[in-house]
Each structure stands twice: as C-alpha cells, then as structure tokens.
C-alpha cells in the first residue's frame, strides 16, 4: 500500500508542490503573527486546477512546514512562531542566549522529524483499522461520536465552556441554511437562490480563521510582536550524539502524548507541546534545570507538536472529524475536489489516502532539508514587512472564495464569516467550535434524524446503544468537568 502511495507522488511535479508547501509552511510558521491556517487559506485557490493528489500533497507539506517552522522564531527571537512552539521558547531561547542556538535549532529540527515520523507510522497502522470499524457503525453510534467531538472541542478550546458551547451551536445554526439534505425543503434561504446550496464551507472557514486573525494583526501591523534576534551557527546537525544521550524515554513519551492529543478533536499541537513539556519536567531527575536551556525541553516540545500532525489526521481521514483548525481547512480542500473524508475514503479513494501518507513522509524529509539548508533565508524572512503581506493574503482569500463557484456571493460569505469571527474573538468566544459545529452540524442532524426514524422517535434508544451511551456519558462528563473547573477558577480569582 505504501508503494502504491509513493508511486502516486514520486514525480517531479508532485514533489515540487510538496517542496513548495513545506517552504511556504516554514515561512508562515516562523513569522510570528502568521499561521498555518492563513497559509492554507492563501494557497487553497492554487489547488483549484490541481489533481487531488497534487493539491493534498502540497497542503500536507504546508501542514508539516508550518508546524515545525515555529521553532526558528521560538529559539532565535524568544517569540513562538505558532502556538505549537510555545514550550520551545522555555529552553530554546535560553540555549540561544548561552551561544548554543545552532545546537537548539538542530535538536528542534531532528525532534520534529522523528516526532512526525512516529505519528505517521501510527496514522498508517491506526487509520485503516478505525475506518474498518467506522464502516460497521450505524446512525446511533455516529451521532454519539460526532456529538462527543463537538462537546469536547467546545469545552476545551477556551477558558469558558459556556462560550465554547454557544460557539459550537452558532456553527450548527449556520450549517442549517440551505435545502435540507434529508427532505429537500428550503431552510432560512429567504428566497435567495444562492442560499439554496447553503453557505459554502471554504469561504466560511477562511473568513472565520484567516480574516478574523488578519484583522487582529492589521491592528498591530509591523509594530506587533518584536524580539531581539540571537545569532546562530550550525555545523553538521548542530549537535552531537552525546548531547541527546538519555533522551530516548523523553522522546517516546512526547511522541505518545503528541499523537494522542492530536487524535482528540480541538486540542492539536498547541496543547501537545505544553503538556509534553510539563510531563517531561515532572518525570525528570533534574526538573529544576528546565527553563535554564536544556536539551530535554526542546525534545519534549518539538517532538510532541509534530507528532500531533499525524494524530490530527486520524479522525479526519477515518471519521471526517477535524482534529484541529488546520485539518478543518483541509476538509475544505477535500471538498473542492469532490472528496468527502470519512470511513469510506479508504474504499473509494484508497490510492489518494496512501498518497497522502507518502506525501507526509516526503514532506517530513524536505522539512529537515529546508530547515538545515535555508535557515539563513528563513531567518531573513522574519523581517518581511507585514503591512504588505497581510493585505495580499486578504486579496488571495477573496480570490479563493470567488474562484470556488465564480460568484461574488461567496466573497460576501467570506466577509460575513470574517465579521462573525472578528466579533466572537473580540469577546473571547473560541472560533474552533464554530467551524466544527458548521462541519459537524449536518452530520449530527443526519444521524440524529435517521436514528430517530429507525427507532420510531424513541430518544431512549440512544441511551440503550452501548457505544452511543458511552459517548453521551463522556460528553456530559467533559461538560461537567469544564464547568467545575471554571467555577473553581472564578472562586480563586474572586
């Protein structure tokens, strides 16, 4: 199967697209303020004319590049390029200050590589098995699973679970617009023809994430986050085997944490790197040395955040449930090419799935090559004037939305979701639940109504089904725990 995947991507054009994706990903990951989500929003219009293999391979390169690129600014500037590299600053920058920037960068790059590789192997073995199990599930099981995913992302993606839940239901409400897929009746179309097919996913995604984020950084412009750039010098890999001696347990532990956190919807690399760092510190024989510039901290953080990449792809490819914001954008890319991610993907588009696996491995290798080979260029790019870059990204977002169906209506959808995202983020509502609610809303409705039709309107049947009941119980537990945590925090503050 791997051979089949590699045969799909081992040609000059596809490798070229992967390399392009990795390069742009590293740039967007390294520059504070720019994110992988923005990069995918910018590059999605380029994929319109590509084959699905080329398009998704390029986006996989972008995913890996953007996840790993954050380490450059985390180590050299003490500013994490992405949320996935926050913990890298704790030990990476102190090492750079001590004149060991080359070593810190080298260890970060190699840890990212092996963390990613571990999660791709997990993805390769886990995903087909989960997909096989998922095919056996009925509407009740699917309802339980999608509902659990929605509750999980809503309650864990912000400080206030109530706000997360409201955001999730806002997304579901927006997904209702259009002709009902089950019975063909128009809902909230207000006689507008363009609304019959519902609000397009791509402009919604780009508007919510990219436009609202861009508006936030437009405010700060070039005067945003700034730091003093540390000098560096890398010779060979930047470190010796002696430097990483005794890191085996830390590495394996971080791989496991990253992959598992990646699989859980809504968490991703930003949680994985911090959790992994904390676990590494708590299980270390010398916890007091953490934060002073030691190798352990970089290994824990950079291994876990890249391990989350493969993890986040597991629910996307097997169940159609995005693991983080980037994979939510990837759903848009799949849909552009008429592909629906989910359990049937392995049957209907097997070669494409294995091509994605192969692309991940190639992209991981290219990430190492680029970060070692073009480090000087990436460091120079940290000074790109953002007042030019941001408006250009907005133009590209508009092009992407317009080009989807060649209609201005989708550009207005982009703006509408941009305003919604902006208003919600200004009042500290998390955005991830909105988009997950928007993606999962139609699935929740479909499985709920089918389940109720199957059981002749018996709601109790959902609790009698063991899998569905477990999911509903877990959902209730997650919500209850989050509310308990919030109340405790409020009491502490007051």
């Amino acid at each position, binding site marked *: 199967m791997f051979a089949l995947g590699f045969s799909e991507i081992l040609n000059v054009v596809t490798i070229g697209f992967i390399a392009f994706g990795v390069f742009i990903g590293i740039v967007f990951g390294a520059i504070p303020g720019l994110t992988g989500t923005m990069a995918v929003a910018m590059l999605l219009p380029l994929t319109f004319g590509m084959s699905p293999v080329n398009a998704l391979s390029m986006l996989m390169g972008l995913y890996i590049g953007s996840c790993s690129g954050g380490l450059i600014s985390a180590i050299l500037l003490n500013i994490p390029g992405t949320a996935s590299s926050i913990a890298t600053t704790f030990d990476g920058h102190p090492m750079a200050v001590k004149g060991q920037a080359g070593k810190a960068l080298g260890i970060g790059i190699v840890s990212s590589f092996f963390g990613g590789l571990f999660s791709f192997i997990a993805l390769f073995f886990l995903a087909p098995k989960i997909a096989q199990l998922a095919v056996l599930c009925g509407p009740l099981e699917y309802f339980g699973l999608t509902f659990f995913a929605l509750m999980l992302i809503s309650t864990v993606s912000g400080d206030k679970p109530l706000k997360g839940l409201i955001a999730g239901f806002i997304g579901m409400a927006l997904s209702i617009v259009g002709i009902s897929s089950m019975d063909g009746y128009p809902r909230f179309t207000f006689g507008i023809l363009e609304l019959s097919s519902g609000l397009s996913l791509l402009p919604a995604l780009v508007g919510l994430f990219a436009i609202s984020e861009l508006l936030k950084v*437009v405010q700060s412009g070039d005067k945003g986050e700034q730091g003093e750039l540390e000098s560096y010098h890398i010779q060979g890999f930047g470190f010796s085997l002696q430097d990483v001696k005794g890191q085996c347990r830390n590495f394996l532990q971080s791989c496991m944490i990253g992959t598992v956190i990646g699989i859980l919807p809504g968490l991703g690399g930003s949680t994985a790197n911090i959790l992994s760092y904390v676990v590494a510190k708590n299980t270390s024989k010398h916890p007091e040395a953490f934060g002073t510039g030691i190798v352990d901290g970089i290994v824990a953080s950079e291994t876990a955040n890249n391990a989350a990449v493969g993890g986040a792809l597991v629910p996307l490819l097997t169940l159609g449930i995005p693991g983080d914001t980037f994979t939510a954008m990837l759903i848009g890319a799949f849909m552009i090419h008429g592909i629906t991610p989910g359990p049937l993907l392995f049957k209907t588009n097997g070669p494409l799935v294995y091509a994605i696996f192969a692309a991940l491995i190639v992209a991981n290798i290219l990430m190492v090559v680029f970060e070692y080979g073009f480090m000087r260029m990436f460091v120079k790019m940290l000074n790109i004037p953002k007042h030019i870059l941001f408006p250009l990204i907005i133009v590209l977002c508009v092009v992407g939305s317009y080009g989807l169906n060649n209609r201005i209506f989708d550009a207005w959808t982009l703006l509408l979701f941009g305003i919604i995202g902006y208003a919600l983020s200004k009042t500290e509502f998390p955005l991830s639940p909105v988009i997950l609610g928007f993606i999962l809303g139609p699935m929740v409705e479909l499985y709920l109504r089918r389940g109720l039709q199957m059981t002749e309107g018996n709601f109790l049947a959902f609790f009698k089904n063991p899998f569905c009941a477990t999911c509903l119980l877990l959902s209730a537990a997650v919500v209850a725990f989050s509310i308990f945590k919030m109340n405790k925090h409020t009491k502490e503050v007051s």
Partner: protein
Amino acid sequence: MKKTSLCNDLTVTSIILALSVILFSTTFSMESVAVDFLGPSFFPRLVSIALMVLSGAYLFTARKTNRKAEEADKSVASHKDLLSLGLMAFYILVLKRLGFLIASSVYLYFQILLCQGKTTKREALWNILLSVCLSAAVYFLFSKGFSLILPQGILG
C-alpha cells in the same frame, strides 16, 4: 473584567439570544409535509432552544461573576479593524464592476496605507506601484497559470 469588556460580552451574547429566539420562531413557518415532529424544522428548533438556554445561562452567570472578577480589557474594537472591514466590503462590492485588477490595486493601496500608518510621498508612490504590481501578479498567476476566471470589469 473591565466595564467595556463586560458590556461587549453582554451585548454579543444578548444578540445571540435574540437571534436564537428569531430562529426558533421562524421554524414554525417552515415548509413541510411531515406529519410527525421529525420534519425539516426539528433540528433548527433543537439548535435554537440549545442556543437560547446556553446564552441565557451565560448572561446570568456573566453578570454574577464579572462583578467579582477583574481581567484585562482586550475587547475594544479599533478604528483600524473597522476601517479594514469597510475596505473589504467596498472591495467585494466593486470587484465585479471595476474588475479584479483595478479593484485589487485600489484595495491593496488603501489597506497597505491603513496598516502602515503615516507615509512619506516617496513611500506612497512606492505603495501605488507595489499595489498595481501585486494585483497584476496575482491576476496573471491565477488567470493564466491556474485558468481561474477572475472578473475583468471595465477592462474586459
């Protein structure tokens, strides 16, 4: 939480509550032939009820807890944000009529100006040149390179 932040918070949640009430009432006028409760209005009704309950609960708890808590105020919208949104709306509005090249050049120029703040004459001229070149580059990349049909407007 500072007064402005709490005020914005409550305003947005109140709007969500009001919209969910409207959503709920609209579900009763939905077309349907289904005789049982499982028609097309079933799910929207469920979602609107959930939104009403959640936003009501949030309004109740926010009023109670925010009197005690003190957090940094991050929620004031700046003129730059609102102007950027206005510029984007204008850009989309004229995109079809003026065409991609002209509309994008104008948008890019003003958006760059807004992000950059005060500019000298030389910088302004440079920005005009940059806006036109970037728009042309995007136009040719997508229309020629990727066969995407972009609006030509008055140039077409």
